[in-house]
Every structure is written in structure tokens, then in C-alpha cells.
């Protein structure tokens, strides 16, 4: 048997639009004509290549991927900095989609609680977009979004519309007021865990969580207080998924490649795995959120 194409080959994605959302957080919209990414499911990711600089894994942040794919990118390293220097019409390489996303089929018919911390709102956006597109197939929808500073809020315009809907309960909080004024949307001061305690959460809810590593332990504790079954808690874990296809080893957690078996895991799959969700907050310098 002669092996086919190399799995490391990307397709060309052309930047269609760039929308700044917050400082160093831009929403990129790419056109990809081969349609190879169109099967993207909520919680999956793609590898974005800036030739000559490198690749980085980016969560898909839209529940509707076709010839256009949206990626919310934070300027954090060399590759994202290079991307921020590009303009509309420029091209990058894209390959994917990779990983297991959130089990949207299993969520159907149930209440769904979505918990986002910081940039974790990007993959969670694909979940709420999917759920709202298939609204009648889900029970109650609860969206919880926490961030460090008030001016970190992403998808502000979208939230303005979402907050008017009566078929989704939305709770947003920031830890600190930074910037000229509070954003013109309903926002409280506090943490994701405070919001989780306020929200009406039935014990048989399914939960989708994505946020900085330090957040998970606390979110899990509160969900347990609310008697949510561990098997229904799904977490998206952050690791450096360099190759995306279960080869390079950088994202290895316990016995699994995060890029293939994850990045979304049900809590029972990972709770006994060393270093999967436990996290030394003291060593978290510079802020990951």
C-alpha cells in the first residue's frame, strides 16, 4: 500500500475580514475554498500556519462553518503576532478540523449549561450558536461567561442581541472594572463560580466548560454543589497541540493525546489523571485567561 497525502499538508485560507474585539483579540474570518473544514463541530480546532513562522492550534468559534471559518485569536506568541500583522486578502495555511468536540448529539433533549472563562468563550460560542440553531432540540440554555477585566469582553455586539432573547439565560461577570466605563451590556463584578451559584441549574443538566486551566477545579466544585452528575460535565483542556494528529506528543495527558481523544473530555475520563485538571495557581504567571 502506498501512503496517500501527508497529514501535515494545510489548505490555503484567505483572510476575508478582521474584526478587533478587545485589545489583542481579533476575530478572523477566512475563506477556504476546498471545503475541507466545513464539517467542523463545536469544540474542535484547526492548525493555523503562517509560513516561515509556525503553526498554532486555534479553536473554531463558530457553530456554522462552511466555506468561511471564523477564528478568534489572541496575540500571544510568534505565530499569532505574525497573523496580527496580516491584512484582509492575505493567506495562511489551515488544516483540520481536529479532535473530539463537545458531544452535541448527547446534549440534545437536555438542559445545557455553557461555562466560559476568558478566551474560552471562543469555543463556547460555537456551542451556543449550534444550540440556538437547533433550539427546539435542547432544554433550558444557560450561558455563563467570566473574564478578568470588564474591557476584555469578546463578542460584545453578539451579546447585545443574545441578551434580548428569552430562550437563553445569560450571566456575564468580570473581576475588575478596567477601561473608560462598563460595557453597555448587563455585567456583574465577580467570578464564573459566583455566576454558577446564581444560575438556575438542574441537576440533570449537561455542562460544557472552557477556560484557563486554573478555573476548572473551582467550576467543578460548584457544579458538584449543584448536584450535577460528573458524567455530564464536559471540559475542553488546553495543551500545546503542535501536530494535531496524535503524533508529536506535546499535548499528551495521562494516557491520551489531547488533540485526538480531546480536547473535550467528560470529567470521569480525566479526573484521576495526574496534571489533567489540577493546576498550580501560583505558577500561573502573566495570566492565561
Amino acid at each position: 500500500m502506498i501512503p496517500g497525502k501527508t497529514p501535515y499538508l494545510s489548505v490555503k485560507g484567505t483572510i476575508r475580514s478582521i474584526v478587533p474585539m478587545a485589545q489583542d483579540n481579533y476575530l478572523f474570518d477566512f475563506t477556504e475554498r476546498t471545503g475541507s473544514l466545513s464539517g467542523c463541530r463545536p469544540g474542535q480546532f484547526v492548525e493555523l500556519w503562517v509560513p516561515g513562522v509556525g503553526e498554532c492550534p486555534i479553536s473554531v468559534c463558530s457553530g456554522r462553518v462552511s466555506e468561511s471559518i471564523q477564528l478568534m485569536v489572541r496575540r500571544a506568541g510568534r505565530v499569532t503576532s505574525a497573523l496580527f500583522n496580516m491584512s484582509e486578502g492575505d493567506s495562511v495555511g489551515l488544516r483540520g478540523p481536529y479532535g473530539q468536540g463537545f458531544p452535541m448529539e448527547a446534549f440534545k433533549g437536555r438542559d445545557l449549561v455553557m461555562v466560559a472563562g476568558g478566551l474560552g468563550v471562543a469555543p463556547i460560542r460555537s456551542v451556543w450558536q449550534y444550540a440556538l440553531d437547533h433550539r427546539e432540540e435542547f432544554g433550558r440554555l444557560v450561558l455563563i461567561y467570566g473574564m478578568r477585566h470588564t474591557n476584555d469582553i469578546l463578542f460584545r455586539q453578539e451579546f447585545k442581541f443574545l441578551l434580548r432573547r428569552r430562550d437563553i439565560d445569560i450571566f456575564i461577570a468580570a473581576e475588575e472594572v478596567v477601561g473608560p466605563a462598563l460595557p453597555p451590556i448587563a455585567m456583574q463584578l465577580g467570578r464564573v463560580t459566583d455566576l454558577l451559584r446564581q444560575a438556575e441549574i438542574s441537576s440533570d443538566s449537561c455542562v460544557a466548560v472552557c477556560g484557563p486551566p486554573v478555573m476548572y477545579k473551582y467550576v467543578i466544585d460548584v457544579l458538584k454543589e449543584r448536584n450535577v452528575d460528573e458524567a455530564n460535565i464536559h471540559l475542553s483542556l488546553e495543551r500545546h497541540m503542535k501536530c494535531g494528529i496524535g503524533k508529536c506528543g506535546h499535548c499528551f495527558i495521562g494516557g491520551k493525546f489531547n488533540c485526538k481523544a480531546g480536547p473535550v473530555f467528560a470529567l470521569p475520563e480525566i479526573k484521576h489523571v495526574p496534571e489533567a485538571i489540577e493546576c498550580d495557581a501560583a505558577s500561573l504567571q502573566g495570566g492565561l485567561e
Partner: protein
Amino acid sequence: MSAAAGSGTNHLPTIAVEGLTGCAGELLVILENLDKLLPFVRVVRFPFAQSKNEGGAVDITFVEGSVSQKHDLEKLKRIRANTRWLVAVGNCAVWGCVQKGALCKCKAAEMIEAVYGSAASSIAAEAMDAAPLDSHVAVDVKLSGCPINASQFLAVTASLLRDHLPYIVSKPVCLECKLRENPCVLIEDNLPCLGPVTAAGCGALCPSMGAACYGCFGPCEEPQIGAMTTILKEKGYEMEEVLGRLTAFGAVIPMGEKWQK
């Protein structure tokens, strides 16, 4: 790179190559590889290699040598003010090299006295404690080496010409040594090889020739100095010799501090 001034008649990015206190080893490496760069850049200043040098701002300046004299510092500040990217090239510019390493053993004044005798006072007036560039100015890219590796230099330049920061990861020499499948001189010959704590880039040159790595590229990322000293002590090396080897190339602070714990 349109922001650069002084591009004159042609539109190529501009570079300058300057030396402070050093052995000019990096300048030679750059000179040897200049033909590969020339299609893509205009060399505005390179006093070591050309007689006609212009003033003004440039895109990239490669600086060799440590700051060891007052006029080094003045020159470095002028360089910083006139370049968009400042690249420290070579161990002297990145770590301070042997001129800084020597300061672990004695004070600069004592060295000057020993070398220059009665003329010491006039020399001392000009001298400073040798230090790497980033002790005095902001450095954008650090490319260590003694001398630098030519292909790393070209890769760094290629990245900067595209306005990207280069990918420089200081993995240990052991990696390059194992990739070349060398027998380990630390294990087989009990040589005091510093490969485990030294930054790769040389292609494990010394261990490939059966000699111990003496750390000339400076420390790798988070060198495990405690473990290194333990192992060399167990092999019968005196603490003074181990410390001398670890600090010889100027990386006094990260190595010295950890060692003292």
C-alpha cells in the same frame, strides 16, 4: 520594513554589523556568509569589512562583543537609537563571555593592575565591568554562540527580514550530541562535559571530537546546575573547578545563583 529610513536609492532592507569588545569571531561568520544575504539586504555599515560606511537608521543591526569600555556603551546607545531590530550575536553580546566570567574570580581593577602595571590608571578610567548588551539597552533577539552558527544566523535574518521574531529555543547540547549518535564523554570517559546545561547550536562540536563541552554557547533554558555539580563532584572533580567551568563564559548570574542554593 517600509518604516526604515535611509534606504536611499534602492528598496532593500538595510542592515548594519557592529562590534564592541570581542574577538570579532561573529563578524567573521557574518562576513563569510554575506554573499548569501547580499541579494536581499543593503549593508549600510560594517566597519570590519568595508571602508565606506553611512550613518542613519537601519532595519537590523547585528552587534558583537560585550560592553567593557565607556566608548562601547556610547556606541551601543547610538546603535540602539538607529535600528529597528537589535540583534545581540555571539556569547560576548548575549552573556558577556570570558571577560565577564573573569569577574567571578577577581575585580576588574586587579586585572588591569596585573596586566598594565603603571599604565593601569588611564586604562581603568575607560574600563567598565564587562556586561552583555541587555544590561544596558533593550535587545530584540539574542543569538548566542562562540562563534555563532552560520545557519542559525541566516535563519534569524530571514525571520527578521519578514518582520517576525525568530524561533530560538535553547535546548541542551545533549540533544544535538545524541542526534549525531555520539558516545557520551560524560559517561564513558568521565570528562567534565557541560553539554547537559549548555545551549545547543554548535552541533555538539566538542563531544563529537571526544572532548568535553565547555559551555561556550552559554546556558540552555533553565539549566539544572544543582544536578550538574552533584554529578561532576561524584566523578571526582573539585568544586572550584566545576564552578570555574560553569562560569567561565560569563553566565554568572543564572548559573551562580542556582549553584549557591
